[in-house]
């Protein structure tokens, strides 16, 4: 394959619309995917693309989004053979724009995890060091984009599942304001938190994808009006005069690795040099985000995953009666982490504990919203490291709580529905570190503006694109 083609942004790639780009990528996926296991399924031949701005550009989506002609497994045994009966809205929009869906990417089962180790399809590895995790739960998408097996991919983000793997694999990841992108066709994990977004090799590409997938959808009542047009203008990267808030609660978190802290402070220094005003602020409820998240997300998940009971679709364990069918199908069909969260959610929603847990979590969520909107009345952006650590070794973490805490910096944006981007800011021992930018609701473009500015001063980027790890750029 012509190596230059992954030195180009999507808009330039699209200009080469005549190129048999897809075949090059398909060949690359076939030969390189076995080393990282980014894909759960991919095509060997593609249909003709529609005419549109992304004509002939291949892409991949996380395996929890529905696309006709593919299975949608969600990394779970219970959906291992589930054929998508329809296209998700995001897929429909990208196909209409001429893009070619080449495959589905691996993920933690039902997006519950931060490492893409918990999939029935095996572990997805980090292209920067294949002994390390790719992050999760959109690890397959991050890994595929990082190794340039596709120019871009879609992920879903419930508590950081786009941004954290993007940070660990050295790509750009963007989670839009809740309601900007339709969830129709996204297998629900926690409906009030889930949002689809792009993983790309530069901020400009993320904007390009958003300009196609964003916008109201008559099939998703939670989408917001007039959001697609937000992304139609050019990026305006600027730092001078902008005000930045850094929550002290985040810097004081004992799980924050020193080298990640140092690299974050290095970027803060660069922002100051560019004329940005950076203040430390206190957002007390940030300390509770993980607790609140692990009450709300499992509660919603326990309900969203009730439909997998073996009667209509997916894995089914033949049983003498309905109760046994449900019990056996779910016992064998779900993995440990999924079962843990279903149990947790079932417990916290039970009438005896609803007030003590779920209801209280909703109150803290409202408090967080208020504290964050107070911050945004004084600051343009909230900044922090995307993840407190660099990618751990595969199998290194066994305590689920340690995983839960890896999302400590990303969860607030989901709980408050805010737009957030992760941009690689540097490398530590050749492993990427992500820098997170959070903005006020509906200020998605402003978040991307700053992300583009960070990209331009980040030592990680080469010629405006995230570099491809050596092994994959040959």
């Amino acid at each position: 394959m012509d190596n230059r083609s992954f030195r180009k942004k999507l808009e330039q790639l699209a200009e080469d619309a005549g190129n048999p780009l897809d075949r090059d990528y398909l060949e690359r996926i076939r030969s390189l995917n076995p080393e990282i296991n980014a894909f759960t399924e991919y095509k060997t031949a593609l249909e003709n693309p529609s005419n549109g701005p992304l004509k002939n550009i291949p892409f991949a989506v996380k395996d929890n989004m529905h696309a006709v002609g593919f299975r949608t497994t969600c990394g779970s045994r219970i959906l291992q053979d589930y054929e998508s009966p329809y296209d998700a809205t995001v897929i429909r929009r990208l196909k209409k724009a001429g893009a070619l869906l080449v495959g589905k990417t691996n993920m933690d089962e039902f997006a519950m995890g931060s490492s893409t180790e918990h999939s029935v399809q095996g572990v997805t590895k980090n292209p920067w060091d294949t002994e390390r995790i790719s992050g999760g739960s959109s690890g397959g998408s991050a890994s595929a984009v990082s190794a340039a097996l596709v120019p871009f991919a879609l992920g879903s983000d419930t508590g950081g599942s786009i941004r954290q793997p993007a940070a660990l694999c050295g790509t750009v990841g963007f989670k839009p304001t809740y309601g900007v992108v339709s969830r129709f066709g996204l297998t629900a994990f926690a409906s009030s938190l889930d949002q689809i977004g792009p993983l790309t090799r530069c901020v400009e590409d993320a904007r390009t994808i958003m300009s196609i997938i964003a916008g109201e959808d008559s099939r998703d009542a939670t989408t917001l009006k007039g959001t697609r047009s937000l992304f139609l203008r050019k990026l305006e990267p600027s730092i001078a005069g902008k005000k930045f808030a850094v929550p002290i609660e985040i810097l004081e978190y004992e799980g924050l690795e020193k080298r990640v802290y140092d690299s974050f402070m290095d970027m803060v220094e660069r922002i100051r040099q560019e004329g940005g005003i950076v203040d430390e602020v206190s957002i007390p409820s940030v300390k509770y985000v993980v607790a609140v998240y692990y009450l709300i997300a499992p509660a919603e998940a326990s309900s969203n995953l009730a439909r997998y009971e073996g009667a209509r679709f997916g894995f089914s364990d033949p049983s003498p009666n309905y109760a046994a069918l449900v019990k056996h199908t779910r016992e064998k069909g779900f993995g440990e982490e999924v079962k843990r969260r279903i149990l947790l959610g079932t417990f916290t929603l039970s009438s005896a504990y609803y007030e003590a847990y779920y209801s209280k979590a909703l109150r803290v969520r409202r408090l967080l919203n208020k504290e964050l909107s107070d911050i945004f009345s004084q600051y343009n952006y909230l900044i922090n490291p995307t993840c407190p650590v660099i990618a751990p070794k595969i199998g290194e973490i066994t305590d689920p709580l340690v995983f839960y805490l890896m999302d400590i910096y990303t969860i607030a944006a989901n709980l408050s529905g805010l737009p957030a981007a992760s941009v690689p800011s540097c490398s530590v021992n050749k492993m990427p570190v992500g820098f997170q930018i959070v903005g006020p609701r509906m200020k998605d473009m402003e978040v991307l503006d700053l992300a583009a500015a960070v990209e331009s001063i980040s030592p990680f980027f080469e010629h405006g694109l995230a570099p491809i790890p050596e092994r994959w750029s040959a």
Partner: protein
Amino acid sequence: MLQAVIGLEIHAQLLTVTKAFCSCSAETFGETVNSAVCPVCTGQPGTLPILGNGTVKLSLMAALAFNCRINRRSFFDRKNYFYPDLPKGYQITQYFRPLAEQGFIDVRLGNGQKRRVRINRIHIEEDAGKTIHEGASSIAASRDRGGTLVDLNRCGIPLAEIVTEPDITSPREARLTMETIRDILRYMSVCSGDMEKGDLRCDANISVVDTEDGKSSQRVEVKNINSFRFVEKALEFEFERISEAMRKGHQITKETRTWDFASRTTISMRTKEEESDYRYFPEPDLPPLEVSENLIDKTRREIPEMPDRKTDRFIAEYGLPEHDSTVLSADRELSDFFERAAGLTGKPKETANWMMGELIRILKEQGLTIGQTLLKPEHMADLLDLLDSGKISSNNAKEIFPDVVTTGVMPSEIAEEKGLHQVDDEAEIEVAIREAMSANPKAVDQYRSGKKGVLSYFIGAVMKKTRGRADPSIVNEVARRLLENE
């Protein structure tokens, strides 16, 4: 004295074009099983609910007709439980904040009195599919054995759940309340009101209170009551069962029972301890339901005069008895017909009599509504005209009426065709009487010797000869004259 304390929980299927949260047709009657479905209503992964306008409008109409306070902002919630006919594993409903609260209806008790039954709440929810237990006579009996088949066509059809306060004091009142609610819903075409088909469903809560010492039994819920008659029957059975236990000093357990059609009794389904925990929580896929003042006003204007008020008006305006007013008002088509016919005939009472007697009997026999027949108010006017001017007898009028209803031909035409016009020609009647006299001289003698009762023999003979068309008063007069004077 022991008295029943009854509250009803009513589910009314709304007559919307589409299902509540997808664009499948809501008219699934007669459809092949599992054909009126889509990825949304079968709970495929990744699908989302979209609330249809029709559902909001019809439930709002019901809420206004039941005099409820409308919550300008209400919310949807999920009720979680596993059942084969519930594809998502949860039902979308409104638990924490319903569409409407604090309403009431006035139920006529038939003796000129009304019972005000307060409405606790009205909320929107989606219907489940149908579970068919193979080879079992009832759901209760087949819970753990036999094959189970599921038809998802009904899944997602919108329901309005109407919950009354426990203001009902007898099984009969409960039936009357159900009928009143049915009438109101049907009036607005909000629900077909057909209990046998399951378009309208009723669960009842009953407890019994001893009015002397104020002691009350535990509350029992009776489910699966599938006709208006059974509302009364099931509650009568329960009232007796509970009363009996109380008289014997036995405890009544708080439980859910099901009406068993076959045995005409109620059977225990589950006790309080076996109740599921539905784990209600806010439905994250649907934004709050905002109802504007504008929509409320617009909907209010579309609500027709309700049966109760119409009944009062019919009594006052047309001088009808309460019973007739109630029956005619209960059905919108029937009451509209009555008003138009009464206007044409100028005789509301006679019009009502005809409708109450002959017309309703024919409709019942043929299983039709008045709109499904060819009968027009003009027919009623023509008929009453014929009767009034003595052109046909009332017996003959009754004879031709079914033809009028089914053919739509004017009564005067049918009477003409059948030669039913009353014979009021004295000469013709005289001929007939003379014939009868010569045929039976013995009877003539009897009359003349003082047995005046024999007169009816001659009248009968004339009526027979003229096939009932002779005017009885003329026959009477002529027969008397001939018998006495000759």
